[in-house]
């Protein structure tokens, strides 16, 4: 279901007669073409996972990171144009460091999300800048507990207990809603996120993919880090098994 905004979609500073800014909507389409990115808030922390579609067999596994640490206590998973994502991550890191220098304590996740959203929104206000073609899932753990935010190319940011962006976001959201997140620990959450990503991956359209996951929880001492290797392998194995069981039906 796409609408053509002929004539009103050439500039981000033009509204259409029905009150839409088409350039921003097109930016969101760029995000929808990217590999799925999921974030969930468990009772003791946040888990984020990315379906990294492998463009070429010659790319080294583990390169092309999609999840970045912004500060000790928070991380960001990016979907959409990777180069745009790099800019946003750099800005977020800078905001976090400046806040820490000025106020003497780590930036609250809510504050960080607001600043990232403001920055993304900024680039939708001027004709000489194009909007970012990225969706961001931001997860952090501060003194108010674990929090998950999602920022869209329009600059909107909401707080979620489960969020998904990219190709398989509809299917992923359905799966997330089935989970009982308030009772789940991050250890269990890692397995579930892996299962969902494997499930929504479209074997027909896309070839191989690499699963990248990170968490910030009590077990990681409220630091944002890559999910430990053995747990990641365990999650991948569980996901593959679940997929086979489904196919076997």
């Amino acid at each position, binding site marked *: 279901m796409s609408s053509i905004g002929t004539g009103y979609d050439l500039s981000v500073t033009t509204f259409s007669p029905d009150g839409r800014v088409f350039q921003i909507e097109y930016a969101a389409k760029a995000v929808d073409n990217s590999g799925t990115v999921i974030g969930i808030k468990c009772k003791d922390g946040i888990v984020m996972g990315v379906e990294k579609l492998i463009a070429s067999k010659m790319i080294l596994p583990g390169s092309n990171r999609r999840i970045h640490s912004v500060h000790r206590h928070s991380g960001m998973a990016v979907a959409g144009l990777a180069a745009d994502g790099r800019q946003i991550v750099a800005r977020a890191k800078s905001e976090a460091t400046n806040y820490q220098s000025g106020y*003497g*304590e780590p930036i609250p996740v809510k504050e960080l999300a607001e600043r990232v959203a403001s920055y993304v929104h900024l680039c939708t206000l001027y004709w000489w800048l194009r909007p970012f073609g990225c969706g961001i899932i931001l997860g952090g753990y501060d003194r108010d507990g674990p929090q998950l935010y999602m920022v869209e190319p329009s600059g909107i940011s909401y707080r979620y207990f489960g969020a998904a962006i990219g190709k398989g976001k509809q299917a992923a959201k359905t799966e997330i809603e089935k989970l009982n997140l308030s009772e789940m620990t991050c250890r269990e959450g890692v397995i579930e996120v892996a299962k969902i990503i494997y499930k929504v991956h479209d074997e027909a359209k896309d070839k191989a993919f690499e699963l990248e996951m990170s968490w910030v929880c009590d077990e990681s001492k409220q630091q944002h880090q890559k999910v430990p290797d053995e747990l990641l392998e365990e999650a991948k194995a569980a996901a593959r098994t679940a997929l086979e069981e489904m196919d076997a039906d």
Partner: protein
Amino acid sequence: MDLNMDLNAPHSMGTTIIGVTYNGGVVLGADSRTSTGMYVANRASDKITQLTDNVYVCRSGSAADSQLVSDYVRYFLHQHTIQLGQPATVKVAANLIRLLSYNNKNMLETGLIVGGWDKYEGGKIYGIPLGGTLIEQPFAIGGSGSSYLYGFFDQAWKEGMTKDEAEQLVVKAVSLSIARDGASGGVVRTVVINSEGVTRNFYPGDKLQLWHEELEPQNSLLDILNSPSPEPMNI
């Protein structure tokens, strides 16, 4: 007596300032003397200044410098509170004061004690002396009068006092310091900050306990004019 008083000397708060944590909050205390050289410019000053609803600061050293630093930090904290959507923490207030003190150390002469209560850490005291160090302490003393209190606190301070014990300790300490430090005097003001809010208290100078060699307050010699004539002596 030196009649050539320099009335244009910068106002300095000789001062005794104290901040003490107790089980549930903090008590801040100070004397009330502001001097210009040897002249007491204000004998009833309020050296405990509000930064936010839950954070106060005790000021010492140059009156002007400490007022300006407090004013800037109050402004920054106000904006920070609006952005954050909840009260600022004591640590953030102390850090803002420290940044101003450190980065302008060549121009400023002010020692500050920041004290308050927030829901994450409870009651906290931070000392920020002249150079701009920031140090979190269970209790802090500052100002010229504090020299006379180091030994006293070594002996009298204990962890986990009640609110009344802590306030009595602060009043006693400021009072002792006023007795010995010429640049401290007047009344004792205290501010108690805890989860329930803020309470200001006032202890008039002439109602304080007398220490070693202190004389009873002398009333005005004008009382002699109003007193009845003495009885004639009977030899």
